């Protein structure tokens, strides 16, 4: 029964939820609009950036991470880090295969 700090449970109210809802809807509109504009190299990056922003909003407010314990935050950070490791280290192989003719 360690880590019982911060034991008051935070209740996030409808105001925040409504605000987040509109932010998410705005993000959706924005990302669809951005995809119809030719930004070349930046198109996928912007799409992913908007998606990440939306996901972060959902995480922080709908999923209450903002009010969670450090442990939860750490666990999520660790999980995301490992997810990125899986993707990036696998991609590193595929990208660097083309670097030289071995």
């Amino acid at each position, binding site marked *: *029964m*360690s*880590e019982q700090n911060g034991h008051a449970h935070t209740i996030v109210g409808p105001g925040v939820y409504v605000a987040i809802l509109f932010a998410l809807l705005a993000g959706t509109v924005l990302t669809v609009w951005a995809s119809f504009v030719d930004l070349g190299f930046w198109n996928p990056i912007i799409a992913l950036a908007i998606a990440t922003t939306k996901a972060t909003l959902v995480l922080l407010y709908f999923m209450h991470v903002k009010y969670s314990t450090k*442990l939860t935050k750490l666990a999520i950070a*660790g*999980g995301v880090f*490992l997810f990125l*490791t*899986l993707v990036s*280290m*696998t991609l*590193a*192989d*595929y*990208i*660097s*295969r*083309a*670097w*030289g003719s*071995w």
Partner: protein
Amino acid sequence: MSTNTIVSLPDQETARIPKKNFLTKENGLLSWLLTRDHKRIAILYLITTTFFFIIGGAAAALIRLELLTPTGDMVSSDTYNKLFSIHGIIMVFFFLVPIAPGVLGNFLIPLMIGAKDVALPRINLLSWYLFVIGGCFELYMMIFGGVDTGWTFTTPLSTHYVNSHVIGAAMGIFIAGFSSILTGINFIVTIHKMRAPGMTWFRLPLFIWSYYATSIIFVLATPVIAISMVLIMLERVIGIGLFDPTKGGDPLLFQHLFWFYSHPAVYVMILPGMGIISEVISNFSRKRVFGYTAVAFSSVAIAVFSFFVWAHHMFIMGISTYSALLFSLFSMLVAIPSAIKVFNWSATLYKGSITFDTPMLYAFGFIGLFTIGGCTGVMLATLGMDIHVTETYFIVAHFHYVMVGGMVSAFMAGLHFWWPKMTGRMYPESLGRLAAVILFIGFNLTFFPQFILGYLGMPRRYHFYPPEFQALNVLSTSGASILAIGYLLPALYLIWSLRHGAIAGNNPWQATGLEWQTQSPPLTENFTEIPIMDHEAYDYAWLERQSRDNRREEAPSAE
């Protein structure tokens, strides 16, 4: 020899196994099948994993018999391939991975941290059922024709070129994977949230630290093999093409996903062993583990680093040479925490008061065999050397040194060490020592010749082999028969001890862990009241003070 031991058994004339314990609480098959008691689930795991071990071991015996002669004259090539596939799949996914967490982890984690049960008891039972269902898929697959892909399911062989029961086998692994995930979640949550008052992180036994590290791997790596098994099944059923080079897919991608789990999985197998060894070494040298923090953090470091090394299984498979460099370097780094552990265990003995009971003998065996396994692991992680020795018997010898020499030795150590806690009875000590020695000799005789065979170039998974390799293979097979005796003997005397073993009492080893502060076998609730941890782990002085107090009070039955 009994003067050497620290066993402090109660007076056998008057001692009884406590009437009220987790084994006797309820009777009947249903009370076992619907139990939520972590200790009963551990026993269930012990029975099922032993069953799978027998299957895998029988396959191994047939393989070694076949390899007595260079010409495949006992079974056909197809049967031989199915035998080693069954051996691999069963031993990896249904014995090595679940055994330490399923049996010792389930039994001990709540006891060691002073909790009544794991955090999610129903999920715990569910995970045993998933394990059994997964196992049933494998049994079904075996009975109705077997699978001949090897345990690695290399694409496109497994997806396009074999006609055996790949889908059944993959399904079994998929389901058993969820069993691992749920066990991992359960352990992490239990260790975080269920610790007794005063049980701070740095008072935890090192056993808990290494199981915590194991669980991290369970939770984060297992889903990736789940998805790769799903992809294998879909590729076979409808041909989605992700691993099919003729459709533009890359078969190597499967290996990336597969090894992203399967390399950390070998640490799933060895980390619990390291935890067991820490407990055993500390107890039988009556000394706190040397460098507690270093050993604790090295467990976590192994778990973390293990995620960055997976492609070292693919050095000659056409991955980019640059990323091979990266993965080789990380593989070197993961060897460091292992080395730290070995040196710390050795240093623990310094100025201890050492006795040589069965668990300790197994622990010594573990250190030696694990060191050899680890050193050869470094050779395999070295890029250049890997070219020559990968995919040969060198690999086979290496991972058997780590898995069988390391993990199974450690598990035997743990099983003997906690046997009195689990059953309330002692095993016969001299037979135990004999078995430990036989196991050590048999193991080395079996697998050391395989290092030489590997360097000579004998490929793994060969049914026929060039005749000049026969002498070493015969040596290996003869060792395997000694090894078989080494496994059979404990099975026999442990079963014997269930009825006839000496009554163990609460703390036969005079060990410090909380699990020894309750009765043997424990109550269903583990403790009559939740203990308060007021001392460091491995504090033998505290134990002495306490037993002195107990003697002074002279309470007839403190429990």
